[in-house]
């Protein structure tokens, strides 16, 4: 591998950026979709989104040759540069997700904060009341009536409820935008044939959504203390959503290869990077097998016939290992693309 201008910091940035964007999309959908049903997902996603994107953006700035000059991104207008557009997207995303996250913070966290900061305690207490979710009773095997869960934050004033939902509503397109942008950043570079296809943007977006669903499978139980069948319901919905994302990923990788094989010499040569070249192992074993095929198989079984018959310990193990595999595969996808792209040149 030659010296690459873009290294691990950009890889991590693209990964975390996609992950945070996906968390916002899933959280927004969970919040708006079926009031109260998916409150754990909505909450976990809302908290994770600004943190992940914030850390990623921090790395992006730190990776600059002149980090202290990053403000120059915002004092000019360069509409032809994907990086310029992306920078503004990230600013908008961060603002919206931060407001949204505040309005989704668990009341218990806010109360313990209020205990520690007496000065702001009354504001924090108020927020804690606003953020108290509706009590939702989920009975195993029974579907919920709509009117049972019509309002998911009954203690919020109307204006706050509206603001929360508005942020969720704006956050979804912003999240999709950030997810697409992480791919466009690479895809818009004709000089690197491995990147230069519109499919990279789609692949990165669906991978962002899939990794976010995986992360939420791991984190939702930590911020949601509801009854078991309610947790189960949320897990299953993440699982179903992830199956869709994973299959969409597969449907992109296959045409990506076919398209490249039938394309000009440069594109064909660059595909060699993952077809017999230095990135073959990480791509097929890491990205495809570990990150897509095995999780898809397990999730498909779980979603169709169910894995209830398995010993509890094994079920728990699978619920941990499969999301981790998806996350590892998602990271490797960024790693392979960032590096293989820089190894290819226009012929």
């Amino acid at each position, binding site marked *: 591998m030659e010296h690459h*201008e873009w290294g691990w910091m950009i890889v991590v940035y693209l990964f975390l950026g996609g992950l945070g964007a996906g968390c916002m999309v899933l959280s927004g959908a969970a919040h708006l979709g079926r009031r109260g049903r998916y409150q754990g997902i909505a909450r976990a996603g809302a908290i994770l989104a600004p943190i992940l994107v914030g850390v990623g953006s921090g790395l992006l700035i730190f990776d600059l040759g002149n980090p202290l000059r990053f403000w120059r991104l915002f004092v000019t207008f360069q509409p032809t540069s994907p990086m310029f557009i992306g920078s503004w997207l990230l600013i908008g995303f961060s603002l919206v997700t931060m407001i949204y996250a505040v309005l989704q913070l668990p009341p218990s966290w806010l109360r313990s904060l209020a205990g520690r900061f007496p000065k702001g305690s009354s504001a924090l207490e108020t927020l804690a009341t606003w953020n108290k979710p509706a009590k939702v009773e989920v009975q195993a095997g029974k579907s919920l009536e709509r009117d049972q869960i019509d309002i998911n934050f009954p203690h919020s004033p109307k204006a706050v409820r509206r603001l929360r939902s508005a942020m969720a509503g704006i956050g979804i397109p912003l999240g999709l935008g950030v997810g697409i942008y992480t791919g466009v950043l690479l895809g818009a570079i004709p000089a690197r044939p491995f990147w230069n296809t519109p499919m990279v943007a789609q692949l990165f977006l669906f991978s962002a959504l899939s990794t976010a669903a995986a992360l939420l499978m791991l984190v939702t139980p930590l911020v949601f203390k509801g009854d078991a069948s309610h947790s189960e319901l949320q897990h299953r919905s993440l699982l179903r959503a992830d199956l869709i994302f994973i299959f969409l990923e597969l449907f992109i990788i296959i045409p990506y290869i076919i398209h490249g094989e039938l394309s000009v010499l440069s594109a064909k040569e660059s595909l060699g990077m993952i077809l017999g070249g230095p990135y073959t192992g990480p791509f097929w074993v890491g990205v495809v097998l570990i990150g897509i095929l095995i999780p898809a198989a397990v999730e498909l079984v779980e979603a169709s016939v169910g894995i209830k018959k398995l010993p509890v310990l094994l079920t728990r193990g699978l619920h941990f290992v499969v999301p981790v595999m998806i996350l590892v595969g998602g990271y490797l996808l960024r790693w392979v693309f960032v590096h293989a792209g820089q190894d290819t040149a226009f012929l």
Partner: protein
Amino acid sequence: MSRYAMVLDPARCVDCKACMVACTAENDVEVGYHRNWVRAAVKGSFPELSMHIEPGQCMHCDDPPCVRSCPTGASYINEAGGIVGVDEKKCIGCRYCMLACPYDARYFDEESGIVGKCTFCDHRLALGQEPACVETCPTKVRVFGDLDDPDSEVSRLMRTRNTEKRLAHAGTAPNLNYIID
């Protein structure tokens, strides 16, 4: 208005690298980096390819992807003369332009944290001198001039010789022309 360009005759190149030395000295290029090069080049189109040695540098493209991709406007194309430059005060060192250049004509100077490239020695042009690489070359591989002036040497060579652009299909409309006959 002028439209600066170069015509190069690779057959004359003896691989002495005097142009690289001259450029480094003239432009105070940090040790370890180069703004021009003598590289192996592929001539013809597939499958009739042949390899030879030839000098090169930034092609000062008319439609430069480096400028298009730059998020800060640091990379610019100088309307007078069409020279592609980097504003040292505006560059944040993101290196996006380097990935966008099909010719690998830019380098990242770790020391200053900004990107550097050939300027066609615009500081010398202002004094009526030629770029350092052009002046130095012992076998006169490079000819530099203004395509808008029909009497210039480059215009004459473009009319009388067969020339070719490198990676023309990359679509950047480069301004270095290589003699092929």
